[in-house]
C-alpha cells in the first residue's frame, strides 16, 4: 500500500479556457475516426474499383475531369458521408455506451466543448476524403487524353459533404442516444438519393437545394458552357455544416450571445448561398445557345492526314483518338470513295434545348436541326462535317464515330435526312464500323447486344442517329469474321454497286457468301431512308 500512497506528483491543472483541452480531444478523436474500420472500409471501397481499373487497363484514357469531379459526388456522399455519419455518431455515443459520461462532470471540458471537439475532429476526416477524391480525379486529369481541368469547387464538394453528414451524425448522437439511429439515417439517405435519381428531371434550379447538384445534361459540356454555380453551392453547404454544428452545440447545452451570433451567421451564409445559386446565369445561357447553334467560334481546328478536326478547346487532346478511327475507315475504302467536300469532323453539344427525359422528338425535327447545323458547318468552312460528341474512350464510342464516318463516305454527305440505312449499304456500313480499329468490333457487338430491331449508331446527347435494321446488319457482322484484306478487296471492286441505295442486302450475301436472314413480314419492316 505504501507504493500506492507514494504516487508521483501530478502536474497541476492548467487554468484558462478549455480551448486546449478541446483541441486535444479533437486530435485524439480525429485519429480514432480516421482509423475506424468503417472509415478504412469506405476508403477501400472507394479506391478499389479505381485501382482495379488502373491495373486492368479498363480505365478511360480520354476522361473529362470536370465531369469526374461531379459524378464522384453522389458516390462520395453515400460512401464517405455515410461512413462519417456512423463513425462520428459512434464516437459521440462512446461515453454513454461505456457509462463514463457521468464522470465527465468532473473534467475540465464541459459538454458543449466536448461536442465542439468532435465537430473539429471531422475536419481532418474531410481532408482525408479530399485527398482520396483528389487522387481519383487528379489521376483522370493527368491522363494525356484528359479534356480540361476539374473545377476546384466541385472537387471540394465531396469532402464538404462528408463533413456535413459527419456533423449530422454528431447532432444525431446528441438527439438520440442509440447507435441504431445513424445506420438507419444512412439507409434513409440512400432512399432519398434513389428518389432523386427517379425524379430524373432535376434541371430546374430549385433542385440545387439538394446537397448534391445533379448534372442538368446527361453528357459533359465544355467548362465555358457550365451553368453549375459550384462556388455558391459550396457556400450553401458550408452554411448548412455550420448550422448543424451550432445545433449540436446548443443541444449539448451551449447558450449565450456567442451561440446566437454563430447561429444567425451560419443561417445567413446558408440562405445567402442557397438563394445565390438559384440566380439564373444569363451569360452561360447565351453561350449555350450560341454553342449549340454554331460551335465554330469556340473551337480549335487541326488538320491531320488531310482531315480537319474541330473540337472545343478543352477537348483537343481527343483529336488523336478520333483520327485513329477516321484513318481506320479510310484505309478500308477505295480512293474513289472520298467524294464530296474534304472530310471534316466537328464536335458538337446540344447544350440548349436538349429534350429532357420524357420529351419525344420526331425525325422531322431531327432533320430540321441537322440541316441547320449543316448550314452552320458550311458557313464555318467545314461543309458536311461528321458530328461527334463529348464522350470518348470506350469501344462503343469508336464504333459510333466509325459508323458516322462510314456513312459520310457511303452517302457523300453527313447524316441529315436519312436515319435508317438499309440494303447492301447498311451491311457495308456495319462492316466498316466494326473493322475500323482493333476495338470498334467489340463496340459494335456491344451496340448490337443492347438494342433490338436495328443496330443504332447513336451519339451520346443527340437522341437520334443513324441505324441499320438487324436484317441488313447481320451480313455485315458476319463479314467481320472474315479476313479483313480479302473483304476489303471485294468491297473496293464493287464499291459503286454496294453503296447504291437501291442495292438489296442479298447482293452482299451473293458476293461474299454470307447468310442473309429471311425478310421480315411487311408490317414489321423498317421504313428505309
Amino acid at each position, binding site marked *: 500500500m505504501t*507504493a*500506492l500512497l507514494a504516487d508521483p506528483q501530478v502536474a497541476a491543472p492548467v487554468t484558462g479556457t478549455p480551448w486546449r483541452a478541446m483541441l486535444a480531444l479533437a486530435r485524439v478523436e480525429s485519429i*480514432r475516426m480516421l*482509423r*475506424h*474500420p*468503417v472509415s478504412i*472500409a*469506405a476508403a477501400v*471501397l472507394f479506391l*478499389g*474499383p479505381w485501382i482495379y481499373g488502373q491495373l486492368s487497363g479498363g480505365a478511360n484514357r480520354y476522361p473529362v475531369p470536370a465531369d469526374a469531379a461531379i459524378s464522384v459526388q453522389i458516390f462520395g456522399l*453515400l*460512401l464517405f458521408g*455515410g461512413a462519417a455519419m*456512423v463513425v462520428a455518431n*459512434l464516437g459521440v*455515443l*462512446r461515453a454513454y*455506451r*461505456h457509462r463514463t459520461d457521468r464522470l465527465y462532470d468532473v473534467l475540465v471540458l464541459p459538454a458543449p466543448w466536448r461536442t465542439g471537439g468532435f465537430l473539429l475532429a471531422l475536419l481532418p476526416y474531410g481532408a482525408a476524403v479530399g485527398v482520396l477524391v483528389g487522387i481519383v480525379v487528379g489521376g483522370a486529369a493527368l491522363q494525356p487524353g484528359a479534356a480540361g481541368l476539374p473545377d476546384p469547387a466541385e472537387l471540394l464538394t465531396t469532402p464538404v459533404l462528408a463533413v456535413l453528414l459527419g456533423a449530422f451524425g454528431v447532432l444525431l448522437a446528441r438527439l438520440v442516444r*442509440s*447507435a*441504431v*439511429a445513424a*445506420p*438507419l439515417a*444512412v*439507409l*434513409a439517405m*440512400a*432512399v432519398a438519393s*434513389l428518389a432523386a435519381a*427517379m425524379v430524373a428531371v432535376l434541371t430546374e434550379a430549385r433542385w440545387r437545394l439538394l446537397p448534391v447538384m445533379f448534372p442538368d445534361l446527361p453528357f459533359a459540356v465544355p467548362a465555358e458552357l457550365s451553368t453549375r454555380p459550384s462556388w455558391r453551392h459550396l457556400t450553401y453547404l458550408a452554411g448548412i455544416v455550420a448550422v448543424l454544428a451550432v445545433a449540436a452545440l446548443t443541444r449539448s447545452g451551449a447558450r449565450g450571445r456567442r451561440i446566437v451570433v454563430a447561429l444567425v451567421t451560419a443561417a445567413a451564409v446558408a440562405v445567402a448561398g442557397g438563394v445565390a445559386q438559384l440566380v439564373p446565369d444569363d451569360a452561360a445561357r447565351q453561350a449555350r445557345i450560341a454553342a449549340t447553334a454554331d460551335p465554330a467560334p469556340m473551337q480549335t481546328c487541326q488538320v491531320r492526314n488531310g482531315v480537319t478536326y474541330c473540337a472545343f478547346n478543352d477537348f483537343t487532346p481527343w483529336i488523336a483518338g478520333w483520327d485513329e478511327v477516321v484513318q481506320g475507315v479510310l484505309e478500308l475504302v477505295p480512293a474513289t470513295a472520298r467524294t464530296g467536300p474534304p472530310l471534316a469532323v466537328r464536335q458538337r453539344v446540344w447544350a440548349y434545348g436538349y429534350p429532357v427525359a420524357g420529351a419525344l422528338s420526331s425525325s422531322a425535327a431531327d432533320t430540321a436541326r441537322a440541316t441547320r447545323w449543316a448550314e452552320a458547318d458550311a458557313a464555318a468552312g467545314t461543309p458536311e462535317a461528321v458530328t461527334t460528341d463529348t464522350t470518348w474512350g470506350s469501344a462503343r464510342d469508336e464504333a459510333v464515330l466509325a459508323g458516322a464516318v462510314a456513312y459520310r463516305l457511303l452517302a457523300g454527305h453527313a447524316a441529315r435526312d436519312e436515319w435508317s440505312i438499309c440494303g447492301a449499304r447498311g451491311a457495308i456500313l456495319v462492316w466498316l464500323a466494326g473493322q475500323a480499329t482493333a476495338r470498334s468490333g467489340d463496340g459494335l457487338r456491344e451496340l448490337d447486344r443492347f438494342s433490338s430491331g436495328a443496330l443504332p449508331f447513336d451519339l451520346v446527347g443527340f437522341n437520334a442517329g443513324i441505324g441499320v435494321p438487324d436484317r441488313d446488319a447481320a451480313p455485315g457482322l458476319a463479314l467481320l469474321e472474315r479476313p479483313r484484306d480479302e473483304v476489303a478487296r471485294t468491297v473496293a471492286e464493287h464499291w459503286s454497286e454496294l453503296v447504291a441505295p437501291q442495292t438489296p442486302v442479298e447482293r452482299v450475301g451473293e458476293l461474299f457468301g454470307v447468310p442473309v436472314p429471311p425478310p421480315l413480314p411487311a408490317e414489321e419492316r423498317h421504313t428505309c431512308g
Partner: protein
Amino acid sequence: MRLNLLGALVRPVLRAMRRGPLLGAGSVGLAIVAVPAALDTVLRPDNLVTLLRLAALCFAVGVAFVLDDPAKPSTATTAVPAWAAGAVRATTGLVAAAAEWTMAVALTLAGAQEGTGEALPVRDLTLEAAAAVVLALAFAVLGWARAPRGVCGTVAAPALLVAAAALALLPQRLALLASVDDPAGWAAAHRRFAVLLVAAGAVAVTGLALGALPPRTVRVRRAGTRMLLMPWSPRRPRSSAGSTSWSRTPASRTRAPPWS
C-alpha cells in the same frame, strides 16, 4: 439443457431485450415502402425492388442489435449456457424481421400500380431479405462473442452496411443486386444469395454454439491469485498483469478496440 429451462428463459430474456432498435428499424423500413405506396407515383418494378431491398436492410439493422445485452458480465456467471439466451434473442429478432418483411411486401403489393406488383419476384426478394437479416445476425453473433460488455450492435450494424456497400459494388459477373429485367443475371444472383444465406446461417449458429463453451480461466502470474476473465474478451492483460502493483496498471494499456 432441458426444454422447460429454455421456456423459463423466454420471458425474462424478452423483457431484458432492447426493443428500441428493433422497433425503430422496423418503422423506418416500413416507411420506406409505405410512402411510395401511399403516393400515386407509378414506380417501375426495378424501383420497387430497390425500395424493398433497402427496407430489408433496415430490418436487418434492427436484428443486428437483438443480441445486445449490457448485463452480460453478470449473466455470464449463471448456470444457463450463454447460447440459450442468445438463441431466444436471435429467434425473436428473426420472427420480428419476418413479420416486418411480410408487412413490407403486403404494403408494396397493395400500393403497386399498373400491374407492376405482379412482376415482382416476391420469392426471390424474400431470399434476399433473409440473407440480409441472417448476415446481420451473423455479424451480431461475432460481435457478441468478442464483446465483454455484451454490446455488439454497434459493431454489427456498421459491418452490415459496409458489407452491403461492398456487395453493391461487386463486378458484373459476381453481382448480387441483379436487375429484374435481366432474367439470367437474376437467377445467377439468387444462387449466390442462397450461398450467402447458408454461409451466414452457419456462422451465426456456430458462433452461438461456441457461446456454450465454459468460460476460460486465465492464470495470472501472481502467486495465489486466479482471475476469472470473460471468455473472448478482446484484450487480456498481458505482461502488465504480472507486475508487482496490479492497481497501478495504466488504464491506457487495456485500450478498447477502435470500433468500440
